């Protein structure tokens, strides 16, 4: 860390923290009894979880017929939700991996929670294709294992199978990356604990000692995992987009899908990170670690990716017209003017127009605006997937099979249920693990702490900082 520290850099840790106060602030919430806010949130989340269990059970008991899918519209809320959840997951990996490679120090405030979000979001996403298979108990058929039917292998040329590999690899790698980062922090919690609590954290901290050689290997491992996760995260949503792009359905069969999906994924993921971070920092009183500077930085990413998505929407329309291919032209006419025009308006309004507010620095640094924008964007990105899936399928090649789709209560409850599952997992995570990477925050204290950089600099320290370290 010999890089010079710019005097105009905003501090990333406020409140003149010391190493010990960082430990106290971040490990403290896991040691105290939960706050009322947490308990209320947990009750709501568990209610959602119960709804999830109920609607999954219902779907499996009654069958997929309990959903409103039909011969024409065979993908509905299920795949919309799948793509939406997978997309949300992407911001976690982007923050932890890509920003690590770019040496962006602000990532340390939010990476732990964002990675947790990734893992929980991918868990929610995975439900939908599995349940949509109809016979959930035969789900293992999707893996190429030696079987008594030949062996008859899966179709390795199918994007749906690529998806299986992409999502399961993504989940595994994210989990390993996240947990490896957690191990030193669990050791910190362990060393503060007594009795049974110490035994539990001793078990999960894998015997971490903080030895110099271990730290060196840990950093090397993190860097290589980041290097692997970066192309991985791009590949995952690329492959998700192949589910559509490799088909011959007008409106899906486009080469713009991979970059457009990846940008959209990052966009929606950052919005979800904002939603979670604004609540987390408030509930756990972590305003000194997740500062306005962090929120500002993430809003810049949201503005950039939102605009990329906007350009992609317009490019699609232009190319549809320019191709001279009437089926493609009709598909896009139908998206904008057809029976689902309201979802197209929702998508454009929430994803393209509303994020433009973030050109203003004042808006980027407003908690209230950011919070509402993050909800808007998540709604908009859900609409985007719904537009792509439902509006395209509703008007296929054969006008006699044109149809309209709206979900049954089971599908709606299943979606709300996954929100409950996600929130429950996140709230439990908030209770048992440090939500900010303690060791990494300590590592940037001397280059990001407000007693060392920024306007509140204390003059006893600055010469020490600028010469070495």
């Amino acid at each position, binding site marked *: 860390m010999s890089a010079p520290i710019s005097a105009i850099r905003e501090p990333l840790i406020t409140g003149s923290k010391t190493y010990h106060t960082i430990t106290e602030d971040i490990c403290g919430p896991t040691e105290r009894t939960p706050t009322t806010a947490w308990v209320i949130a947990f009750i709501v989340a568990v209610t959602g979880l119960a709804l999830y269990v109920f609607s999954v059970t219902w779907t499996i008991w009654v069958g997929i017929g309990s959903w409103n899918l039909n011969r024409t519209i065979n993908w509905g809320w299920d795949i919309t939700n799948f793509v939406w959840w997978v997309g949300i997951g992407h911001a976690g990996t982007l923050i932890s991996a890509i920003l690590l490679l770019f040496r962006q120090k602000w990532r340390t405030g939010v990476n732990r929670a964002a990675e947790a979000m990734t893992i929980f979001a991918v868990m929610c996403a995975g439900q939908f294709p599995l349940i949509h298979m109809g016979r959930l108990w035969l789900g293992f058929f999707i893996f190429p294992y030696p079987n008594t039917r030949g062996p008859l292998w899966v179709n390795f040329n199918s994007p749906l199978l*690529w998806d299986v*590999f992409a999502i399961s*690899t993504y989940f595994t790698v994210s989990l390993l990356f996240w947990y490896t980062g957690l191990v030193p922090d669990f050791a910190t919690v362990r060393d503060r604990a007594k009795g049974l609590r110490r035994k539990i954290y001793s078990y999960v901290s894998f015997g971490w000692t903080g030895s110099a050689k271990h730290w060196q*290997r840990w950093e*090397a*491992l993190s860097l290589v*995992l980041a290097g*692997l996760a970066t192309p991985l995260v791009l590949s995952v949503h690329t492959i998700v987009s192949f589910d559509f792009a490799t088909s011959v359905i007008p409106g899906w069969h486009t080469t713009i899908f991979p970059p457009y999906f990846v940008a959209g994924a990052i966009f929606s993921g950052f919005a979800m990170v904002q939603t979670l971070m604004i609540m987390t920092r408030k509930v756990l009183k972590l305003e000194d670690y997740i500062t306005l500077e962090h929120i500002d930085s993430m809003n810049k990413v949201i503005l950039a990716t939102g605009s990329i998505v906007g350009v992609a929407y317009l490019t699609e329309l232009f190319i549809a017209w320019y191709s001279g291919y009437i089926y493609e032209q009709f598909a896009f006419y139908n998206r904008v003017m057809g029976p689902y025009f309201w979802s197209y308006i929702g998508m454009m309004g929430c994803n393209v127009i509303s994020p433009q507010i973030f050109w203003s620095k004042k808006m980027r640094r407003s908690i209230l605006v950011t919070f509402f924008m993050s909800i808007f964007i998540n709604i908009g990105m859900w609409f985007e997937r719904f537009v792509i899936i439902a509006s395209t399928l509703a008007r296929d090649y054969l006008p006699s099979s044109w149809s309209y789709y709206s979900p049954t209560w089971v599908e709606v409850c299943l979606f709300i249920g996954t929100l409950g599952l996600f929130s429950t997992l996140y709230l439990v995570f908030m209770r048992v693990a440090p939500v900010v990477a303690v060791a990494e925050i300590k590592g940037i204290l001397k280059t990001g702490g407000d007693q060392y950089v920024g306007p509140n600099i204390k003059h006893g320290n600055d010469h020490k900082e600028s010469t070495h370290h």
Partner: protein
Amino acid sequence: MKQESTQVLYGLYNDEEVLLHAVKKAKEDHLDIMDVYSPFPVHGLDNILGLTESRIHIAGFIYGLIGCLTAFLFMTWVFTRDWPIIFGGKPYFSALSFIPITFEVTVLFASVGMVVTFYTICGMGPGVDNPTLDDRITDDKFCIAFDVDNADESKQAALRQFLTDTGAEEVNVKSI
């Protein structure tokens, strides 16, 4: 884990820069440091300590290569030898469409392999309870440890003196 216990003399420092100076001094004095512990990775420490660069990325490359070959050759074998089927009029050996899965399996093998290797070579794993010198090392203390199993009184006194002189706030002996 370890059955034999070692007598360890260690000093706790409050700041990583003081620690770096102390380690540098110890190296100049040719003192044999057993290990250095810190609550977060201290940059430049591995150079001063003379630690060789971690080779975990080489292991990762090898695992990735194994994953890559496994996936690609397996799919090739399935579609050209074991059960050739024509999909969409494409050749049996449609290498381009093998790329996504080959890539995913490469990443999977490299990541899982590296993580397993990391915990194995560090002697860590679920439920492993390695002895630690002080609970504050994972909080805000930086520690230099000397193995004093075979050191006599005067050698120990010299090491104590060294730790205090270089700015250690506390010097203790513990058997781990």
